[in-house]
């Protein structure tokens, strides 16, 4: 993460278009890491608050954040699997293409 950060800063300093792409990817990556952690944190604190004070609204919000966490990670996993399949198809297509040109 830190390496990506400094790498991104360096490529921005070089002033190329690739630098901006790296920075955008970096922020995307940071968001992907931040949201699950934030949902987990909210679930933990709200549920603890509900148990300690008997606050039903906090309990409901806590479970809502647990649901959001699962939904976020679930969709992320589906997207990653889809990307794998896409790259696999892309790779096989490239390989067959290379073989046919030789």
């Amino acid at each position, binding site marked *: 993460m830190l390496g990506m950060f400094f790498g991104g800063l360096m490529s921005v300093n070089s002033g190329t278009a690739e630098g901006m792409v790296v920075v955008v990817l970096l922020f995307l990556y940071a968001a992907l890491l931040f949201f699950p952690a934030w949902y987990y944190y909210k679930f933990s604190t709200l549920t603890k608050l*509900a*148990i*300690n004070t*008997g*606050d*039903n609204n906090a*309990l*409901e919000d806590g*479970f*809502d954040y*647990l*649901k959001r966490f*699962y*939904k976020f*990670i*679930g969709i992320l*996993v589906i997207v990653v699997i889809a990307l794998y399949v896409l790259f696999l198809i892309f790779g096989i297509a490239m390989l067959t293409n290379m073989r046919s040109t030789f």
Partner: protein
Amino acid sequence: MESNFNNGDLRVTPGMETNWRITSKWAMFFAVLGFIVTGLYLLSALAIIPALRMMAAMGTLPEPVNSLIGSFSWVIVLLYLGALACVFLLALYHLRFSNSINRALNFTDQNAFANAWLNLRNHFRLYGIMTITFIALYLIMLVAVLIFVGRMTDTGANY
């Protein structure tokens, strides 16, 4: 833990029920995915373990790694199977959580409700222990690499 929590204050609301149902669906998804991953890793273990032994026997790997794998291949196998068992258990806890919370909501079964949260707790506990173990392993590897590099530069200075 202080237990000043009042049973009468906390109730199950319709919003919670829908949240639990959606959570249980995703937990089931992760459970199925976990079982598939376990199966795939088991299959790859069948290929990797003989390959490692063969490479060690032929001496194709660089020297410290080669003799380490040669004499400690059973340690690698045990570590691999241990990690595999952890992945399997994580999926199993998710499966039980998903099934129990659904049974609890459909038949207002208090035992199933308690069982569901017990399994989610077990899942989080195992996940936490695994995370701590991995962080500790990273630190150990970092220290080992630093010591190794330090020795290399020490001997290098003698030339």
